[in-house]
C-alpha cells in the first residue's frame, strides 16, 4: 500500500536524440490502479521501467509514499513487476520461481513455504508447483508470473502488457481476474497496455500517452466523455469516435454546425456561443453510440437523412456507416433496425454530447455540454 507520484520526470537517451519522456507529472493514491496507455513507441514502457528502476531517469523525481526512490537500485524499491514475456526462470520449477525473490531476501524456509502456499492457493496453481515453465500453457505461465510478483508483497505492482501474449478468450478471463485480485489485495498498481478496452475496464486512473507526453490524465469516464484533444478522443473507444470536418456559422448569436449527407443538409445548433469560433475549420467529434435513429414523431432535435452504405451487425449492435461532409461516419444502432444498404435513415445527434476540436492543432475547443475537464491535466512540452 503506497502512494506513487511522478514529478516532472524526464528521460533522454543522449543529447541529439528526442526525449523519450517529457515532463511527466502524475500522482495516484494508495491502492489505486493506474493505466498507462498509448500507441507503441509512446514511452509508456520506458516510464514503467523508470518506476521499476531498470532505467535511470534524466530529470525529475519518483516518489513512493512521499520518499524519493529515483536514485535507488531496483531491489531496494520494493516493487514487483509482471513482464509481457512472463520472464519465468526456465531452469527452475514453479515453486522455485515464486520463491526465488524470497530466498534472495533471506526469508526463513518455513516462511517461504507458507508464502508459496498462500500465493499458489490464491492463483489456483497449487497443482503446477513441481512443473517447469516450459511445461505450462500461456495462461498458466501468466498466473505463475503474477504469483512471483504477489509473493513478495511489494508496495507497488507493475504490469507490462501482461495479457498481450494470450489468445482473445483467455485475455478477457485474465483481465477479470486481475481486477478481482486488485479489489481483494488493494495494492497500488501501474499497468501498461496499448489496449483501450483494458484501459477502460481496469483503471481507476488512466494516463493516455503519446510521443513521451501525457496527453490526458483522469478517470476512465473523464477520458472517454471529455477527451482533452483529438488524439485521446480517437484512441479511446471502439468503434472509434467519428470526426467530421466542418465550418461553424453564427446564427442568432448561437453557433451552428452545418452537416451535409449528399441528399440532405442540417444545421445542428451547438450549446455554446464563444466568439472566434465561427468561420474557421473545426472537427466535430461524436461517438457512434451518440447517434440515434429519429423517432417517428418529432422530438425537437434536428435530424438528417443519409444513405446507408455499409452495415456491420456485431450481435448486440448494428453498425451503420453513412457519409456526412464527405466523411465516413459510423452509427451504433439497435440490432433490430431494418437498415439495408441503399436505404435512407433519419439520424439525430444529441447537441449536448458533441465535441469540437481545432482542425490544425487537434486541441479541444470550448466545452460543449459536459463540464470543463478540470482534473484532466494536459502536459505541455517545455523545451529544455
Amino acid at each position, binding site marked *: 500500500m503506497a502512494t506513487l507520484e511522478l514529478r516532472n520526470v524526464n528521460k533522454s537517451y543522449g543529447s541529439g536524440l528526442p526525449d523519450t519522456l517529457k515532463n511527466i507529472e502524475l500522482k495516484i493514491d494508495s491502492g489505486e490502479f493506474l493505466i498507462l496507455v498509448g500507441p507503441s513507441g509512446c514511452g509508456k514502457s520506458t516510464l514503467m*521501467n523508470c518506476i*521499476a*528502476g*531498470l532505467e535511470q531517469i534524466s530529470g525529475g523525481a519518483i516518489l513512493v509514499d512521499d520518499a524519493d526512490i529515483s536514485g535507488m*537500485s*531496483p*531491489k531496494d524499491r520494493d*516493487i*514487483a*513487476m509482471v*513482464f*509481457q*514475456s*512472463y*520472464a519465468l*526462470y*526456465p*531452469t527452475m520449477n514453479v515453486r522455485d520461481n515464486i520463491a*526465488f*525473490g524470497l530466498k*534472495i*531476501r533471506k526469508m526463513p524456509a518455513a516462511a517461504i513455504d507458507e508464502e508459496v502456499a498462500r500465493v499458489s492457493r490464491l492463483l489456483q496453481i497449487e497443482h503446477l508447483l513441481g512443473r517447469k515453465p516450459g511445461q505450462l500453457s500461456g495462461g498458466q505461465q501468466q498466473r505463475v508470473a503474477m504469483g*512471483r510478483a504477489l509473493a*513478495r508483497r511489494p508496495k507497488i505492482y507493475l504490469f507490462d502488457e501482461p495479457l498481450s501474449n494470450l489468445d482473445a478468450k483467455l485475455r478477457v478471463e485474465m483481465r477479470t481476474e486481475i481486477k478481482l485480485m486488485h479489489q481483494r489485495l488493494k495494492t497500488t498498481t501501474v499497468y501498461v497496455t496499448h489496449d483501450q478496452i483494458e484501459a477502460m475496464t481496469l483503471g481507476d486512473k488512466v494516463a493516455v500517452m503519446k510521443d513521451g507526453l501525457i496527453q490526458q490524465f483522469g478517470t476512465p469516464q473523464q477520458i472517454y466523455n471529455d477527451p482533452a484533444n483529438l488524439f485521446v478522443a480517437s484512441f479511446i473507444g471502439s468503434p472509434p469516435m467519428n470526426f467530421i470536418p466542418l465550418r461553424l456559422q453564427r446564427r442568432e448569436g448561437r453557433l451552428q454546425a452545418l452537416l451535409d449527407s449528399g441528399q440532405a443538409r442540417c444545421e445542428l445548433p451547438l450549446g455554446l456561443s464563444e466568439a472566434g469560433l465561427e468561420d474557421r475549420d473545426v472537427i466535430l467529434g461524436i461517438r457512434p453510440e451518440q447517434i440515434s435513429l429519429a423517432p417517428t414523431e418529432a422530438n425537437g432535435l434536428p435530424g438528417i437523412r443519409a444513405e446507408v452504405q455499409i452495415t456491420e451487425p456485431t450481435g448486440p449492435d448494428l453498425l451503420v456507416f453513412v457519409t456526412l461532409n464527405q466523411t465516413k461516419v459510423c452509427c451504433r444502432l439497435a440490432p433490430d433496425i431494418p437498415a439495408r444498404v441503399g436505404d435512407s435513415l433519419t439520424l439525430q445527434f444529441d447537441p449536448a454530447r458533441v465535441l469540437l476540436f481545432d482542425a490544425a492543432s487537434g486541441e479541444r475547443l470550448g466545452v460543449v455540454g459536459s463540464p470543463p475537464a478540470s482534473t484532466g491535466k494536459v502536459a505541455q512540452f517545455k523545451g529544455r
Partner: protein
Amino acid sequence: MTRASLHPARIAIYATLLAACALYLIPLLVMLLTSFKTPEDIRAGNLLSWPEVVTGIGWIKAWDTVGGYFWNSVKITVPAVLISTLLGALNGYVLSMWRFRGSQLFFGLLLFGCFLPFQTVLLPASFTLGKLGLASTTTGLVLVHIVYGLAFTTLFFRNYYCSVPEALVRAARLDGAGFFTIFGRILLPMSVPIIMVCLIWQFTQIWNDFLFGVVFASGDAQPITVALNNLVNTSTGVKEYNVDMAAAMIAGLPTLLVYVLAGKYFLRGLTAGAVKG
C-alpha cells in the same frame, strides 16, 4: 526393404559413402595395425597386413617415453579449458545483458582474436610472460592458452546469451538478485549446451596445440604433442614405427574420447543460437 532403396542411384550413393568412409579410416587402421606389430614384421610386410604376432611392446615403450608428457598435457589443458570457458561465459554475460558504452566496439575488437594466426602472438606473448616472470613455466603456457581462447569462448557465450530474453535479467534484478547471483543461478543453468561446445572446442584446440607448447614450455614440462614430435623426429638408431604409431594414438585418444562422449551436445549447441530457444 522397398524396391526404391535398390535403385542404382541409391546404390551409387552408398558406394560413394562407403568409399569415403574407408578412405578416412585407412590411416587409422594402418596406425592401429602397425602399433601392434614387431619392428621386423613392419619391415617385412605391407602396411595393411595383419600382425604376425600381436605385441603390446610398442604401446609399452611409447607410454614409457611420452607418458609423463601426457600428464603435462592434462595439467595444461584442464585448467586452461575450465578458466577460459568460465571467463568466456562471464564476458558473454556482460556483453549481452549489461551492455555499456562502447561494448559493441569492445566485442568487435575481441573478435579480431579469432582471426589472429598463432605465429603473430608468439613474440608479444613471450615478451609479456618474461615481464610477468612466467617464461618457460606451465602457468605461463596456460595463461597464453586462456587469453588466446577467450575470443572464441566469449563469442560462443555472447551469441548464446543474445537469444536469452533480457526480461529474465530484469525480473531477477527486481527479485533482488545481484550481478553474480543472476549469472550463477539463472544464466549458467541454462547454458549446458553452449558450455559443452566451449569445452569440446577449447579441449581440442589446447590439447592438439603444438606451436605454443614448443615455444612456451621447456624440457620436462612440454605437452605430449611436442614430445611426440621429438620422438618421431629422432634421427639416430633404428626407426621404431610401432612405437611412433602407438605414441600418436596415445596423443590423439583424449580428443577422440571427448567427441564420443559429448559430440551430441556439440551439434546441438552449435545450432542452439540459430534456432529460437
